[in-house]
């Protein structure tokens, strides 16, 4: 009863309205762990804090603010110093968590269901494809951001004493990010997923000694090749184990950053100097409200860009190819872009050395950089070797990535290539892009008059003719280069002589090439398209390559 009496008395004294305002202020102070309404307003205005400073109380009272330092050295809060890439990596991880949980609701990791669940997410779940797009773009952006974060740290020499261990945990986080991205690749259970992960799995298999590689592969995939067991394991790694590793290592990483501070520009800080704890009062920039506002505005803008990229279709969208089919290898299997450099390495030599040993050495060296770099200076002008090594590595990375694409050292038969460009196994391509009604029924020939066909078909035949010619020229050039190489050998071995003779005897490419496209009505809304490529090598009979596919009026492969 006493409490109620007190309250009644207070209300009588202050009036109901003011009493309620005061109670609201108490609530605000509790929620913000120490800031009342006027404190919030003064922060938004950019005023000086009152004494004693309530903004510092927040850092000791609130969990989320206590892991942030209450102030930074003013030199490290400029955007150009760190580009806030560490914050951004964390932010993308959070985006992945949220969108990932949304997607998990509609997904079961079994070969019978996974692909159907993807179709349902796209066609039956409101905002399903939107969530997939964010999840996918966020994952790719996270790989880029983590990579840039490390480049920045390397170039400013920030990994040096006392931050060696921070760098080491950073390398672990890089590996975890790459593996998170890669393990997510398998989950849609489409052709893209299946074959990219098959390449990855076969690399693990090659790890020396064979007993180790095979055992690790067996543990990871649950079988000699990817199937139900592998899908479930990748799923659990993707949604549970690797995120836990990331969260665990992240806190170590973050604690170290807070503990020793973000490195100052190299001109203001000597190696080993503890600048985080002794920031002169006039150089301090307080987290509340200055840095906090900067971070929120920065993340707001990044989110805006992320969404704009998706909504305005700058980002083509998360792909979904045909259902995984172990019996049908796609013409070009390509690793995810951030692993193309490994695929490039694989084309150069022995899979054990190039696919396992070299990447292990690369990441191993990366991890121990702070412990083998004895150069005491962080200034770029004192680190010519380190900077040169970085430039060299970047150049190698770019070249290897290019070598990983199908443009390098992949020779598929030219006729097959022509049909693949006209009508790719996945995505749309020129034939599917042509309006369904414009696919005039009949037999059309690149060498004949196609004026009876629609304009769309006429254009397709012109394109097919050009492609046959282009592929022919490409193959002939490659052939001639090979012949020239073999001829230039001074003392050729018998095997080389034999190869030269064999090359000279063949008429490469698509000599006298022509193409046909036969379009038939097959069912209601369904047309059958047969593409044939003909060519006649000198002294040989006519050769043919043929491929058939069906096109439905309603199907749409735009972007997927």
């Amino acid at each position, binding site marked *: 009863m006493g409490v109620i009496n007190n309250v009644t008395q207070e209300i009588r004294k202050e009036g109901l309205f003011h009493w309620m305002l005061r109670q609201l202020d108490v609530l605000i102070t509790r929620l913000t762990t120490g800031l009342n309404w006027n404190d919030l307003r003064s922060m938004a205005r950019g005023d000086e804090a009152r004494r004693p400073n309530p903004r510092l109380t927040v850092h000791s009272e609130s969990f989320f603010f206590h892991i942030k330092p209450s102030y930074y050295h003013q030199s490290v809060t400029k955007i150009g110093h760190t580009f806030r890439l560490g914050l951004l990596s964390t932010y993308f991880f959070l985006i992945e968590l949220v969108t990932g949980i949304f997607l998990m609701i509609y997904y079961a990791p079994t070969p019978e269901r996974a692909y159907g669940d993807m179709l349902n997410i*796209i066609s039956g779940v409101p*905002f399903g494809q939107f969530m997939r797009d964010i999840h996918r773009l966020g994952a790719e952006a996270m790989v880029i951001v983590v990579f840039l974060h490390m480049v920045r740290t390397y170039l400013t020499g920030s990994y040096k004493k006392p931050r060696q261990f921070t760098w080491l945990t950073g390398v672990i986080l890089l590996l975890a990010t790459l593996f998170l991205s890669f393990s997510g690749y398998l989950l849609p259970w489409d052709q893209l997923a299946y074959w990219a992960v098959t390449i990855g799995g076969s690399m693990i298999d090659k790890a020396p000694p064979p007993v180790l590689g095979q055992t690790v592969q067996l543990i990871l995939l649950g079988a000699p090749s990817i199937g139900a067991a592998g899908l479930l394991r990748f799923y659990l790694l993707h949604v549970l184990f690797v995120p836990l590793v990331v969260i665990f290592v992240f806190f170590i990483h973050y604690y170290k950053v807070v503990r020793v501070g973000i490195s100052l520009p190299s001109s203001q800080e000597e190696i080993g100097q503890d600048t985080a704890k002794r920031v002169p009062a006039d150089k301090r920039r307080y987290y509340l*409200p200055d840095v906090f*506002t*900067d971070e929120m505005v920065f993340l707001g803008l990044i*989110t805006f860009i992320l969404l704009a990229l998706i909504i305005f279709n700058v980002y083509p969208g998360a792909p979904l190819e045909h259902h995984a089919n172990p019996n049908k290898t796609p013409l070009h299997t390509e690793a995810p872009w951030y692993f193309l450099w490994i695929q490039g390495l694989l084309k150069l030599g022995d899979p054990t050395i190039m696919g396992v040993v070299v990447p292990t050495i690369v990441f191993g060296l990366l991890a121990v950089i702070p412990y083998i770099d004895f150069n005491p200076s962080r200034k770029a002008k004192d680190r010519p070797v380190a900077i040169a090594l970085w430039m060299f590595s970047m150049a190698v990375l770019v070249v290897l990535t290019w070598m990983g694409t199908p443009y390098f050292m992949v020779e598929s038969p030219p006729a097959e290539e022509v049909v693949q460009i006209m009508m790719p196994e996945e995505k749309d391509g020129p034939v599917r892009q042509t309006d369904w009604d414009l696919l005039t029924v009949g037999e059309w020939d690149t060498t004949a008059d196609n004026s009876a066909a629609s304009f769309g078909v006429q254009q397709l035949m012109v394109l097919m003719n050009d492609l046959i010619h282009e592929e022919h020229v490409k193959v002939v050039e490659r052939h001639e280069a090979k012949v020239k190489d073999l001829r230039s050998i001074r003392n050729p071995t018998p095997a080389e002589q034999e190869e030269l003779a064999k090359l000279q005897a063949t008429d490469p490419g698509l000599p006298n090439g022509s193409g046909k496209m036969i379009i038939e*009505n097959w069912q*209601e*809304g369904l047309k059958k398209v047969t593409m044939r490529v003909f060519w006649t090598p000198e002294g040989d009979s006519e050769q043919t390559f043929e491929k058939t596919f069906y096109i439905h009026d309603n199907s749409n492969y735009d972007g997927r």
Partner: protein
Amino acid sequence: MNNMMTKITVGIIALLAMATIFVLFVARDEPARLPAEEANFAARSVENGALLFEANCVGCHGVQGKGIPGVAPSLNSPEFFTTRLQEVGYTGSLRSFIEGTVNAGRPVDSGQYSAKMATWGQEYGGPLRPDQISDLASFVLNWETTAVTGEPVAAEPTPTPLASDASPVEIGAAAYTAQGCAGCHGEPGGAGLVGPNLGGLATRAGSTVPGLSAEEYIHQSIVQPNAYVVPECPSGPCAANLMPQTYEQTLSPAELDGLVQYLLTLVE
């Protein structure tokens, strides 16, 4: 102070802009996008099913699913869509009837058709995944409108024309495709599915049955499949009565001769 205000303003504008474009471009389009995607995937399912039908089913059910008398029933007929379920006393949907039959096959000899349908579903030891069986059903069901109304949209597809001066081998190769031989025998040199693979047939045909030349043996095997049944098939011992015995009636003399000539080119 201005600095702080600018930042907060920029932040609020970015948030509002995000909310606006989200509502205008995502939420607004969502009700139309979902059915469009559904139609897209239904259409893709028909496309996939068409390829599967061509690879696996035409051998017995015919290129356009019209059935082959004495071999397998028509799937592209009004009866199939209107009365078949009642005839067999099946109470489920037509889609589940098709999927169930493709999955588990027709192991019972009905007396009406010479071939027993193999079990096609992986669940029952066959080669097809559940999603492929569903695609096949989508393709078969897509015949419904034209089959029931008898509209000519897809009744008779224009057959792929051959050049007038086509050689017998070319005519034979076309017949091999059109008759769906690959449905059981696979592509020559590839893997056979039900019947023996014909890769290298010309090399061994002359010595299979004493007294018959390679040409005579191949001709006999097409028109009288039961005269000599080779022992080994991809799925175990070969069975008699599995291959249709009607090719003498359904093939023209030129096609029959072409087929023999074509098979004679399959040397090892």
